[in-house]
């Protein structure tokens, strides 16, 4: 299954929304423990009345989706599929809090309505009056990958074309506090661009939305093409990861010699990053390696940011120096391998190729 990425968009802690030049101007944040999105002026894309009722993740999702479809010159997508690890947590928290504060009496239903995980996909459909296939996946570090897999299958099996797939998560004050208590983040503030220099426990929290318009057909402005991502759950050891990697590459009739750039999910957590460094030492020695979580932070659907980055890098044939771990690629970048894992539970590979 090979499909073309004909439109992309991301709202992230980088200037990605109007993405033409963001690779030239990556933003570094000083002394932070989390990264938040640089948000567009939503009312340029959503009716102000409607925007007022929407929570932040819904606005981010709808705006990014619309901009992505513009980018692909698609008016009506053949399907809308989203992936989100935690969904609309701002409204979930709001409604949950109101139950206890108001002792179950006279509750405002709006946050309940917007707390369901499919709110963003539904809001996009509502905005476009799109009655086509619509679904939402909510599986931790596989959420975006499942959305993508579904989209690729649809392109393979149905007349449906121009499928919109997105991955998104929001960070709220409370979700940061809870995940911080769980020990996910660095205990002292860091400079985001130096994320890998600290060599201690924890990562940098983040958030974002990234959308892709996928098609069976290559267009003049196509960014790249891609195949089915690979997901594997709780690998028992590094050799299982290596096995999965070689199975993934050989499925697409590739070897590591074909890979011009590897993008890794390095997130600064010393224990979690070990596996990436082992792979670099043993397999990626001669391949330029890049990383991305110092640009967007760690969250369940951060792999969508990596795919966005890869699609853009292939099209522009340039990569910001701050994203490179070692050397910058010298040759034409034809194939990018992305490897990401979330807390050593959900592991994924993507192959993004020039078309």
């Amino acid at each position, binding site marked *: 299954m090979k499909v073309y990425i004909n439109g992309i968009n991301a709202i992230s802690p980088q200037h990605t929304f109007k993405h033409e030049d963001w690779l030239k101007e990556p933003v570094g944040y000083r002394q932070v423990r989390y990264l938040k999105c640089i948000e567009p002026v939503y009312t340029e894309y959503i009716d102000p009345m409607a925007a007022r009722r929407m929570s932040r993740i819904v606005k981010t999702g709808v705006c990014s989706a619309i901009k992505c479809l513009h980018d692909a010159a698609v008016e009506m997508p053949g399907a809308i599929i989203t992936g989100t690890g935690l969904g609309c947590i701002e409204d979930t928290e709001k409604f949950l809090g109101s139950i206890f*504060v108001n002792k179950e009496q006279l509750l405002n239903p709006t946050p*309940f309505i917007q707390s369901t995980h499919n709110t963003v996909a539904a809001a996009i459909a509502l905005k476009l009056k799109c009655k086509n296939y619509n679904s*939402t996946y909510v599986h931790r570090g596989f959420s975006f990958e499942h959305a993508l897999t579904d989209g690729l299958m649809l392109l393979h*099996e149905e007349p449906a074309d121009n499928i919109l797939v997105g991955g998104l998560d929001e960070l709220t004050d409370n979700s940061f506090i809870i995940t911080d208590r769980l020990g996910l983040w660095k205990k002292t503030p860091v400079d985001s661009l130096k994320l890998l220099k600290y060599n201690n426990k924890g990562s940098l929290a983040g958030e974002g939305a990234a959308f892709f318009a996928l098609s069976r057909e290559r267009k003049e402005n196509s960014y790249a093409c891609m195949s089915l991502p690979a*997901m*594997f759950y709780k690998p028992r050891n590094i050799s299982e990861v290596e096995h999965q990697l070689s199975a993934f590459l050989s499925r697409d009739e590739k070897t590591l010699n074909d890979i011009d750039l590897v993008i890794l999910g390095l997130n600064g957590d010393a224990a979690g990053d070990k596996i990436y460094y082992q792979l670099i030492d043993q397999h990626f020695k001669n391949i330029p390696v890049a990383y991305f979580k110092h640009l967007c932070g760690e969250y369940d659907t951060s792999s969508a940011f990596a795919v966005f980055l890869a699609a853009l890098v292939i099209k522009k044939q340039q990569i910001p120096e701050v994203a490179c771990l070692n050397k910058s690629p010298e040759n034409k970048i034809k194939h990018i391998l992305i490897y990401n894992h979330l807390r050593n539970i959900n592991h994924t590979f993507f192959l993004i190729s020039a078309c």
Partner: protein
Amino acid sequence: MPEKVFITGVGIISSIGKGIDETIDSLKNSRSGIGVITLLETAYKNELPAAEVKATHEDLMEIAGIKDKRPYSRTALLGIIAARQALRHAFIDDIAAYRTGLISATTVGGMDKSEVFYRPFIENKRHGRLRDIITHDCGDSTETIADYTGIRDYVSTVSTACSSSANALLLGARLIKNGLLQRVLVGGVDALTLFTINGFNSLMILDKNPCRPFDEERNGLNLGEGAGFLMLEAESIAEKEKKSVLCEISGYGNACDAFHQTASSPEGDGAYLSMKKALDTARLEPSMIDYINAHGTGTKNNDLSEGKAIERLFGNTPPPCSSTKAYTGHTLGAAGAVEAVFCVLAIQNGIIYPNLRFQKQMSELSFSPVVALQNRKPLKHIMSNSFGFGGNNTSLIFSAI
């Protein structure tokens, strides 16, 4: 030609039974599980009926045979119980023998535990036990079921509100047809929570009496809880293993109403499209459907919209139709799977379930639902509808072999 997708085992736990035998007995004897709330600690205990699984956390731990100290949400326990039944029913003992996946669906995941965490947490952000919040996200119950059953090849969670588990079935069937999996355990689970009971109550769509789907005087839905799981196997694997096959998933359709975040369109556009697509994938004519297990929540809006859509597709004399939510309440993310299990049992037993408590025909509709248990052999094709907030509509078709 893509492979056929067979159902070789089912598992279920709901207010009307902790297993297939109790469930079919309740269905045959019109025994509804809707009643007074006795387990959930809510201000609405004596005001709003619901369909609880009458088992405490400890009871469920015991049924599941779990003794370890890992935190389990009620959602995960209900899911484990139904998933284990389905695997046993399908006689699957070696998970690793074939490429096997797990797709579960839920709307609020481990919310029952999150509520325990949140009460002290909102008073003081350092309070609340962390073991009560790490089961919050929807992926948690799925991964807990995966670890319990040993399924590792493909682990996914769907959440499209009240059609969640219908979409889990749809995805499972497609993954097999596309050759990505050989077997997949699909289903859904939701536990009754303060979050959902207060949510639906704030929308003023909960009936203070046991619900009456498709009745002129219907006045809302009752919430329920439970889990349903179904073992899907590729035709080639079922044949090779000489499996006894319960039925086939022959059709599925997913469409979006795109009308309103919570309300359905008056003409039921999304419902019509999802049913139409399901017929198209099954290559069936409307007249070939023998029974429709309707979404039929009992709200004014759903039943009218769904009824109109059924009329549009099937004409003024549609096939026998009933909503089994008058038995189980609305089990939200589990509903599609719970009702899929009912459809499988209907085909197995050659019966059509009554739409309990129906009295008065809806003035807007030309048809009324089945009111008494019907023996009807053979039942060849059954359609099951699941519609959700956000207009996420999915229809499935189950066919006898």
